[in-house]
């Protein structure tokens, strides 16, 4: 199936889906500090039917708030693969695009879409809650139009993504004293 064809049922489902998005509450980096203002009374993203969700298995949106260290990337890949389809990824701030201020760091990745597909980027360091809400609106529009297809790309190009993940991480599985 090509990525852009949807059946009529999917179209209806997408309409409904866009009105109720659950965002996985995983703060990977600095950007997390602008999430509380967006979630709470000042900017109140519940107006758009969005809310935070503590577990990946019930979340629709994975929100990568800024830089990702290699150590976090392993958990993010775990998390992303646990999320049910359809799932959407938003890259927040400069760091997810091209490394941001940590472009020369030995511990952080430089481009997120090399490892997992990203549906939408927000520019800024860090973006303001206003930009965040605009991005959510844009994402809803994209879902309704059937343009947010990152999760399909991940399935189709799984080998490519896996290869990139392995290139940067060595291995995705975690070995520490708790995972023996």
């Amino acid at each position, binding site marked *: 199936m090509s990525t852009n064809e949807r059946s009529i049922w999917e179209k209806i489902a997408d309409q409904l889906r866009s009105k109720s998005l659950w965002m996985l509450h995983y703060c990977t980096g600095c950007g997390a500090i602008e999430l509380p203002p967006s979630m709470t009374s000042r900017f109140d993203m519940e107006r758009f039917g969005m809310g935070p969700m503590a577990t990946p298995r019930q979340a629709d949106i994975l929100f990568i708030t800024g830089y990702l260290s290699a150590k976090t990337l392993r958990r993010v890949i775990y998390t992303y693969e646990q999320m049910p389809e359809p799932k959407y990824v938003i890259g927040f701030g400069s760091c997810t695009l091209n490394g941001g201020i940590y472009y*020369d760091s030995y511990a952080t990745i430089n481009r997120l879409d090399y490892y997992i597909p990203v549906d939408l980027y927000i520019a800024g360091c860090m973006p303001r809650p206003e930009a965040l809400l605009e991005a959510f609106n844009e994402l809803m529009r994209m879902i309704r139009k059937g343009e947010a297809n990152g999760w399909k790309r991940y399935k189709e190009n799984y080998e490519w993504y896996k290869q990139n993940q392995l290139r940067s991480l060595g291995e995705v599985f975690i070995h520490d004293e708790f995972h023996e």
Partner: protein
Amino acid sequence: MGEVKLFFGPNHPGMHGNFSVHMYVEGDTVERARPLPGFLHRGFEKLMERRLWYQNLALIPRICVPEPDINEVCYAMAIEKIAKIDVPERAQWIRMIILELARIASHMMSFPGIGGPLGLYTSSFWGVADRDRILDIFESLTGARIYHMFIVPGGVRKDLTPKIQDLIVKTLDYIEGRLPDYEDLIFKNRIVHTRLKGIALLDRETALELGVTGVGLRATGVPYDIRKVDPYLFYDKVDFEIPTATDGDAYSRVYLKYLEIYQSIKIIRQCLEKMPEGKVNVPLSEGSALRYKVPKGQAYVHIESTRGEYGYFMVSDGGEKPYRVAVRGASYPQTFIGVEKYLPGTRIEDVPIWLSTMDVCAPEVDR
């Protein structure tokens, strides 16, 4: 025996961010706990060695997200100490205003934020919304909400205009007017008392032995605050008190933060009054920013952040880049030894309370 492994984090909604604790749990009680940091490690200390003295200004605030200005001040003061720069008086007062505003902003997020682990969401909603007013001040003063990049070695980047001063005065009045509401909501709340009193105890000897600083130490009855003990900027020229408590539990730590906001407001008002007119910065050294140099030397500078002693140890070899900068994260002791030694014995539902009242702050530990 049914010992169960429990992964706490890194994926957890809470003030302590991207930080993980691995626990062995028996029943409801934590038997052993291991801290697992490093999810926010970016290698700041290495990156700083690759950037020019002035360029680092854009990097350092990112070490601590809720209160970035402490980094800027430490960095600037360390350089000023090594290079023996006389900072204009007005700049020092502006720095104090910024530091105290940042303290209020951070406290406004963390003390009502205790509602998060308790299920009392109203308080955290209020806190974040009121904190946003402080961010509005930062936006008009420094040009950004979170990462201000405003305090530079030699002073501050721009002057505090009368318009911004009015905004500060108004906002402080507003915050001060709001605080009794928090008192009603949190500290007169029976549930809060039941859940926080006697929890996450830390006595004075342990706190001193571990090297815990900040409210964690002051809640055990000692008025140890770097602003008083080793005054920096003009903290010896303003009048304020160090609130202390004797119980050493979660409740007193939260309550101390609440009381500190009053003191911060008092300090800012004095600063606004005492601030002279004049220049706000001097160049770090001769020439253009591309060629600033700091003479050979070493210095350790520490300041009182919301979580305790925050310090920079800086080594300069006389070049155009720092030779070595080491950062002392304020919550380092409680994050490691605290979690490992003093978390065991806590019930699972109290772990988030333990972590947030102990101010475990992952970004400054990981760096």
